[in-house]
């Protein structure tokens, strides 16, 4: 698991699983269609990504489908991350 994947995974577990919820969350576990994250609570995840990775995810791209697994969320972050500036 790379750094971004681990950070997203840990955030999902911390933010969305209730105490005593023993469901396992992997990179491909369905989060929204699987009932772990509802669309109402999804906004905090979007905000977390934007803040931590300095990205702007347009609302049109922040769909339940794009947020449905850790893997897809990471892909979304990569898609909107600006390429690193030389020397930065």
């Amino acid at each position, binding site marked *: 698991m790379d750094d971004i994947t681990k950070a997203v995974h840990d955030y999902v577990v911390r933010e969305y699983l*209730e105490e005593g919820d023993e469901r396992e969350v992997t990179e491909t576990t369905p989060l929204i269609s699987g*009932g772990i994250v509802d669309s109402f609570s999804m906004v*905090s995840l979007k905000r977390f990504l934007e803040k931590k990775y300095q990205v702007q995810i347009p609302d049109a791209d922040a769909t339940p489908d794009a947020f449905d697994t850790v893997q897809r969320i990471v892909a979304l972050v990569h898609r909107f991350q600006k390429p690193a500036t030389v020397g930065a």
Partner: protein
Amino acid sequence: MAFINTVRTRYQTEIEAIKAGGLFKEERYIHSPQWSEIEVEFPVGSQTKKCINICANNYLGLSSHPDVIAAAHAGLDSRGYGMSSVRFICGTQDIHRELENRLTEFLGTEDTLLFPSCMDANAGFFEACLNEQDVMIADRLVHASIVDGMRLCRAMQDTYKHSDMGHLEEKLQEHMDKRSRMIITDGVFSMDGDIAKLDEIVELAEKYDAMVFLDDSHASGFIGRTGRGTQEHCGVLGKIDVITTTLGKALGGASGGCVSGRRELVEMCRQRARPFLFSNSVAPVIVAGALKVMELITATTDRRDKLEWNAKYWRGLLKGAGFDIKEGESPIVPVMLYDAKLAQDFARDLYSEGVYAVGFFFPVVPKGQARIRTQLSAAHEKHHLDFAIEAFKKVGEKHGVLGLGKKELLARVGA
């Protein structure tokens, strides 16, 4: 005509998908007044059947109370049937304001504004009172109408884990840069029947300079020693900034809701809340009935006391029979079955045994949390509950769920 065949087919396909997903909702026609015993036509076209009703929000048994009916008749005679106007044109009668004053007094707030429903109160409040400089922090299990109201508002949205005060505190800390923070919760959560930790919420609100919004629809009239609601139960009367509640449950059960709270917030709703501005208010006949309800519930606590007794008795019966129920103190008692199909079959079999209850499953409750939600009423007599438990036991035995805990029930359905 624009409703061409391809459009019709599209909708038919969607409806079929709802049916295939087991999510299709069917109405059952009731041929009697709302009460603990009702006469039901189900399926449509079949002979009517007498049932014990254990799923109404008729907590205080006032939906068909003779004094309320008489007051509604009198109101119909003295103030007419309809207003044919929104409130601010020519749709406000003296009795609308009288009812608002009675609710203000009862809830211990500064002012109250009636809405066509509590759904409308929740849909209109946030947009009228908050903007992009503010943040709304809601419990994750708040009612759908609050979710809709928050979506209509430009303020930042956030949520905290259900009744998790540590998580709420983290969120409050995270949003200290906002102009205003509003904590949003139900008083009694409608699906689980548990009560919000309102005393702790108020403490956090004071610590982090936040306002508190409470939807007390499943509490007003019966939770708390004198029925003032969750704020009375938790010892924080007068400390809640906004209370929304309904006249459609314990308080007569007809229709209508309100926003009650800080004078300025109520005034903002009067000026800006769109469901208030662009819809007729509660009809005069309902206002007259609700005024009688307020008189009845402030004269005595007999009904809420009986409801409390009924709820304790029913919880004891279910536990004694070996059902897995959600613990709590409210008259909402969910019988946990976890599996959606089982919940539907169970409700159908209860109906065959003369008990009317409904199965709830995803998306109304989280996946794997299907249940039969039972609700007590002061209109229930002991013999109603004794009859109902026999039906529950018979159906429970048929489905092999008696004496099983969550793990065993889940294993039984292969989850």
